[in-house]
């Protein structure tokens, strides 16, 4: 924020960075090789709904678009859920080997929101992974920073910090990782994880 904006008390809404999301499929291969985590095929986009007709129209369009694309391949329809903080999660499910299709779906959501001027409403996107011991891991992409961080929930709202740091060690150079650990905020009960 510039000096003038400070003086005048203005904040420009932050526009999301979308492109780094496409680095995910290749990083997933490294993650499987290095730590044994495979994608589950489900991923979600989390965004802040805006009140009013305009936003709900856009959201409906996005949902229809994704339903059509998944229907062709016999996939599951997209689901929309609202969490306790009032954020919407749009969950897209694919087969576990279709990570690229999933990323394309997620990108479709992003670009529709951005095209309609709701880019600042995008919070994060989450792609779910799992290993042989059924440990859960989410890779979270922060739109505003354009960075990734891992989130490994344990039962009872605790995080497996050791696993998260291990993941950072494995794919930290493949993806643009979030270096500021204080921004690795938890998303408890995120749908699709």
């Amino acid at each position: 924020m510039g000096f003038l904006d400070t003086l005048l008390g203005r904040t420009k809404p932050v526009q999301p960075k979308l492109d780094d999301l496409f680095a995910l499929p290749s990083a997933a291969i490294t993650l499987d090789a290095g730590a044994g985590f495979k994608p589950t095929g489900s991923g979600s986009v989390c965004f802040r709904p805006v009140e009013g007709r305009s936003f709900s129209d856009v959201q409906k369009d996005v949902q229809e678009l994704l339903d059509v694309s998944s229907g062709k391949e016999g996939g599951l329809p997209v689901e929309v859920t609202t969490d306790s903080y009032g954020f919407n999660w749009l969950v897209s499910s694919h087969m576990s080997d279709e990570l690229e299709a999933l990323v394309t779906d997620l990108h479709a959501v992003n670009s529709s929101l951005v095209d309609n001027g709701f880019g600042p409403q995008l919070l994060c996107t989450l792609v779910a992974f799992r290993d042989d011991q059924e440990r859960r891991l989410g890779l979270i992409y922060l739109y505003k920073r354009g960075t990734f961080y891992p989130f490994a929930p344990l039962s009872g709202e605790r995080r497996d910090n050791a696993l998260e740091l291990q993941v950072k060690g494995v794919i930290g150079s493949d993806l643009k990782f979030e270096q500021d650990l204080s921004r690795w905020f938890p998303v408890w009960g995120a749908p699709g994880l």
Partner: protein
Amino acid sequence: MAARTRYAPDRGLTVRMTATMFLLGLVFVAFVAAIIGIGAAYHASSAAIVLFAVVLGGGFAIGSLFYSDKIALRTAGGREVSPNDGPMAHDLHGTVDRLCALADMKKPRVAIANTDLPNAFATGRNADHAVLCVTTGLIRRLTPEELEGVIAHEMSHVAHKDVQVMTAASFLAIIAALLIRIAFYGELFGGGRGRGGNNQNTGIIMLALMAVSIVVYAVSFLLIRMLSRYRELAADRSGALLTGKPSALKSALIRVSTDMARIPTQDLRAAQPLNAFFFAPAMKLNAKASLSTIFSTHPSLERRLAELDKVQQQLGRTAG
């Protein structure tokens, strides 16, 4: 490629804020000119007094800026909490986390004040030292959505660097207030010290200094209050744009304001020094508000609701 945006800055607010700051700067220049005029008219002791006031006032301003977070937390009885300190702290941290990620801001420290007065404030000299404090009374009274609106408002204060801006703006008033006091005591005691012919002139200089300072103090006080009100409106606006729900902030404002009016005045006197950073002023709302509005730190409820209506229209506009 510039992304399309539906967020236009509020030009009217910008113009009014610029004008206020320009006037404040003008008063400052006039003040300096008057002091130089008075000092040059006779001798150097008045220059020394002014310098003393500037140094002392600067010390006050910088001190209050540096310790703003600690002072405010102690006055409000706030205690810093971690996400594991019970469900209230857990939810509060969750809300702040998400708003920070949405706005790409550094997360402020989070505190809860155990008092029934429904209020919230954010302070600290910069974003690295920012602290956000919410009272238990506020958490109890508001729905999660309304609470989020209030937190977004407070975080906008941090993003706008309101503590720094208001400290800089108050600097002038602090110096003027100090000069009034110094000149007053100078007038009382300075006359009797017997330095021959100087006495009478010193008395006149002190009187002139006091008169100028009083005028400057009064004018800058009104301008600072005006600036404070504009910055509240700006924080309302940015907060509502961030959450995308102006109506949640509106209902929070209505709920808090009507609650406030019912609280007895005596409790509130203790809370008054902090008013400038509060979400809603902890003062009894005056029904015949025409005169009291120019003295208040926050805009009237009607004004804030009207400005939020504009944000709502802006957000609901169909793509085009």
